[in-house]
């Protein structure tokens, strides 16, 4: 017993050692050059974010001082406390959260059902409806903003949560991606369950959904990012500062009475940082999610 455990520990140690050795390969000249190049390019990519952070830590007068300088001379959190005290930024943050969470939840449930329905069941008019979904791939608030707005206006949903959320909940692209994915699941798994007497819904919930967790995660992550960052639709459908989402509030309200750059940068970081922090922790899932969703467009 103890020897078995001992060997197991030993092999695990050995495995760790070899994997450690694999990552600590010697620095070849080409690796040094590539790493330096990577560091330089990364610096260029991060510089604007650093600039935003440093600006947000200057006072408003120092922010617009000429000549411009990177680091604040007097570090101050004035701008940050100002946006929390005077602005609606906490409101916007909550609105963004509510809208993105609702949109993601609805898109996932409605999209999974529809993707499965199109992939695995037969009903009258399926071919025609699939064609309609393909047409829907070409429609967006950018393309048909005005008619979409008048429709939502007719329903009395301007300046409401419903008006912001529901029109974001019918993304043909996500249904199409899930449809493609469900088609790839072997039919035999479901057939076996049908023979055992399981109903359609049970098969869907106990066999198909657990198998498709990675795809659902991909679609969910992509939807959340898109919804959190969506500007155009909330911009069209809300005028009420209490209902605005982060991107919307920052762009319209904070830009309207003479820009205060330190505050604007602080607000921008507030809107952008949550996703970046989440990204640091769930990097692998987000990378595969975005790549998977994008690649499914093939």
């Amino acid at each position, binding site marked *: 017993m103890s020897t078995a455990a001992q060997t197991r520990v030993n092999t695990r140690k050995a495995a760790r050692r070899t994997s450690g050795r694999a990552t600590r390969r010697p620095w070849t000249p080409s*690796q040094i050059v*590539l*790493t330096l*190049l*990577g560091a330089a390019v*990364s610096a260029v*990519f991060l510089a604007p*974010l650093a600039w*935003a952070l440093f600006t947000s830590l200057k006072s408003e007068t120092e*922010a*617009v001082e000429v000549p*411009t300088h990177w680091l604040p001379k007097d570090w101050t959190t004035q701008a940050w406390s100002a946006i929390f005290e005077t602005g609606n930024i906490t409101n916007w943050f909550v609105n963004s959260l509510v809208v993105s969470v609702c949109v993601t939840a609805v898109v996932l449930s*409605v999209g999974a*059902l*529809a993707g*499965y*329905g*199109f992939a*695995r*069941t*037969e*009903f*009258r008019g399926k071919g025609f409806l699939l064609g*309609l979904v393909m*047409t*829907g791939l*070409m*429609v967006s608030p950018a*393309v*048909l*903003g*005005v*008619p979409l707005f*008048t429709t939502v206006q007719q329903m009395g949903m301007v300046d409401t949560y419903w008006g912001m959320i529901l029109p974001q*909940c*019918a993304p043909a692209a996500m249904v199409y991606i899930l449809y493609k994915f469900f088609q790839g699941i072997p039919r035999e798994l*479901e057939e076996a369950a*049908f*023979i055992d007497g399981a109903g359609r819904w049970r098969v*869907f919930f106990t066999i198909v959904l657990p198998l498709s967790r990675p795809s659902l995660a991909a679609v969910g992550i992509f939807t959340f990012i898109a919804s*959190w960052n969506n*500007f155009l639709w909330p911009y*069209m459908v809300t005028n009420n500062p209490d209902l605005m989402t982060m*991107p919307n509030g*920052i762009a*319209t309200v904070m*830009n309207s009475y003479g820009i205060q750059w330190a505050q*604007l*940068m602080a607000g*921008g*970081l507030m809107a952008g940082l949550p996703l*970046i922090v989440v*990204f640091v922790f769930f990097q692998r899932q987000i*990378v595969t999610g*975005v*790549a998977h969703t*994008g*690649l499914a*467009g*093939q």
Partner: protein
Amino acid sequence: MTATSAQTVIAPTRARTAAAGATVRRKQGFQHGGWFVAPFLALFALFVIWPLLRGLYLSFTDANISGDATSFIGLDNYREALDDPLVWESLGHSAYFTLLVVPCITVLAFLLAMLAHHIERGKWLWRLCFFAPFLLPSTVAANLWQWLFNPGTGMINHVFGIETAWLTDKSYAMLAVVVCTLWWTVGFSFLLYLAALQGIPAHLYEAARLDGANAWHRMVHITLPMLRHITGLVIALQILASLQVFDQAVVMMDFLPGPEGSTRTFVQYTLEEGFTSYRVGYASAISIIFFVIIAAVALARMWLLRNREEGGR
């Protein structure tokens, strides 16, 4: 249900009936899926199909936003749109933007992916750095670059020691929007390329190395051909997204059309007509024209893909 009760009554034929019941059930299992798609179709009909049809209808009327009585005016809106210089101008701006952004993003994303793929250490760090801007809302990216491009107090002019009026000179304004867009969105295409690079089987490179191919040959004869599909996808997605540019341009120019209207994009023009001039009918007509353009691009891509597949076989 009937199959099960039959089984219990007639014992000898049990096996056969059970088998028949199973086939029936299996078939039924894949039938009547209407309920699965119903919730999506309801939302889709309300917020995609209906606005599309409504836009088509409105485009033949002189509707305005306050809902006054509208009358049917036939093709007048379309006739006006063809003669409207701003339609052509704004369409030109969107096309110009697309023409600049698409090649730059494709090449840049490819180079970044090659870089991140070939550095052995700290892969997650490179991915984070190149992809992070994509996680910002478009308006935040736009505000940030508006601030960087600011002629007096911005960093760009300071770093390069120049005094270009990026945002107020009409020959530079769109370039500023392009630079902001590149920084903000290249991460998405970068990830697609990175995933594709990781999907190229390693044995291809090993075989090539045994045959004495150098790094350049391996790239030209293996990497680039293997990435052809993904390049097509990146270009198509970027064309469709770039034609619909709105957020960055509008925010960087303080919600105005830029110096001498030089950054007024097509989407911006439809919204100006609809929400500023209150001409819903006319705005719908030019939106429908825009929809046709977008659909033509998307269909052209599908057609190209199908042709290529058939040619490959």
